């Protein structure tokens, strides 16, 4: 009698264990019911530290214009991220799940809160938590860039050895810009992330860059103008020791490009900015 009771209890326990195990497996398979902010954090982590699948990729760039629009690569290109600005300037939309190269992927969209900036779509591998494809679309919906895996070898993902250091907003640099470029205001949501000296042909330049978290554009100070072209605005402004040309490059509406440059009320202090760039480079 006692033995029978034990047997029944054991069967009941086994059944309960089986049911719990099955429900647990089911919970792992299904896409977890996460809040959007949790999903955004997972996406940022995937872009920053996600593993690198072994395979072949294809990278297409439509802006800036170039001869060979599409090229083959061993992996997806690195994105210049500023995580804090992504949280501040983008809304995450979950567009559903898809199959890519036979694997389950979550399709996610980062839509800019502010007009004029580019939006991004990501295809994140559900199991590996790493992107298998992403694309950038301009303010007008046009495809600017797309990178995607075209084949995966051995269904294997390699851990990222040296995760890239994310860009950060530089308040010190922004104070310097405010003093050297009077009244300059980048497009809303964009913050200064770097300054360096450059050399384009024989031309010495000072090159600032701004980011909204995912989209980055340069503002170049040079002694010469550049020819008008798609996505480029130029303006000549007075400087403390003469004149300087400002070039802004980016996939923005023309009014944004020209309006941004128009905010500068000279005279520009090129030397001060140059000294700051030198101190930055010598003490990174």
């Amino acid at each position: 009698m006692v033995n029978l009771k034990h047997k029944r209890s054991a069967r009941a326990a086994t059944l309960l264990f089986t049911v719990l195990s099955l429900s647990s497996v089911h919970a792992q398979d299904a896409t977890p019911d996460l809040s959007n902010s949790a999903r955004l954090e997972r996406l940022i982590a995937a872009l920053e530290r996600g593993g690198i699948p072994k395979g072949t990729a294809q990278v297409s760039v439509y802006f800036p214009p170039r001869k060979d629009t599409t090229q083959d690569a061993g992996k997806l290109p690195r994105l210049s991220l500023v995580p804090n600005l992504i949280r501040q300037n983008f809304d995450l939309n979950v567009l559903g799940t898809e199959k890519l190269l036979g694997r389950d992927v979550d399709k996610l969209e980062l839509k800019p809160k502010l007009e004029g900036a580019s939006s991004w779509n990501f295809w994140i591998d559900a199991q590996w938590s790493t992107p298998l494809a992403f694309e950038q679309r301009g303010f007008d919906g046009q495809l600017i860039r797309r990178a995607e895996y075209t084949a995966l070898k051995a269904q294997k993902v390699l851990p990222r050895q040296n995760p890239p250091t994310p860009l950060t907003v530089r308040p010190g640099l922004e104070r310097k810009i405010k003093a050297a470029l009077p009244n300059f205001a980048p497009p809303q949501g964009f913050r200064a992330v770097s300054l360096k000296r450059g050399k384009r042909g024989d031309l010495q330049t000072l090159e600032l860059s701004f980011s909204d978290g995912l989209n980055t554009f340069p503002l170049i100070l040079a002694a010469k103008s550049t020819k008008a072209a798609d996505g480029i605005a130029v303006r000549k402004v007075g400087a403390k020791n003469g004149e300087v040309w400002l070039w802004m490059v980016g996939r923005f509406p023309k009014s944004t490009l020209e309006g941004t440059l128009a905010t500068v009320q000279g005279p520009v202090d090129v030397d001060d900015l140059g000294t700051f760039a030198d101190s930055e480079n010598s003490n990174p």
Partner: protein
Amino acid sequence: MKDPWDELIDGALSASPPDERDNAAVEKALFAVRKYRSRSLFNRLLQTGLATAAVVAGLTLTFRPQGSSTGSTVSPQYAYDAYSEVDGW
């Protein structure tokens, strides 16, 4: 409408029978014709020269090596290169 030089020649030739012509007037007319023709040739050469110079200048400016500069303006490729560098693609 007749060219004034043609009128002058016509006038000189129709003024009198061949044996009574004003030879001075005929000489004057022929001189004028020669001058007109030489000036016309000069104009044609000038036009051809100018057109050739324009074509050569146009070709020189159009087919400059990519990324080079002309005077106070440089190629937009410099700006695009800066963009690609900061963006990392």
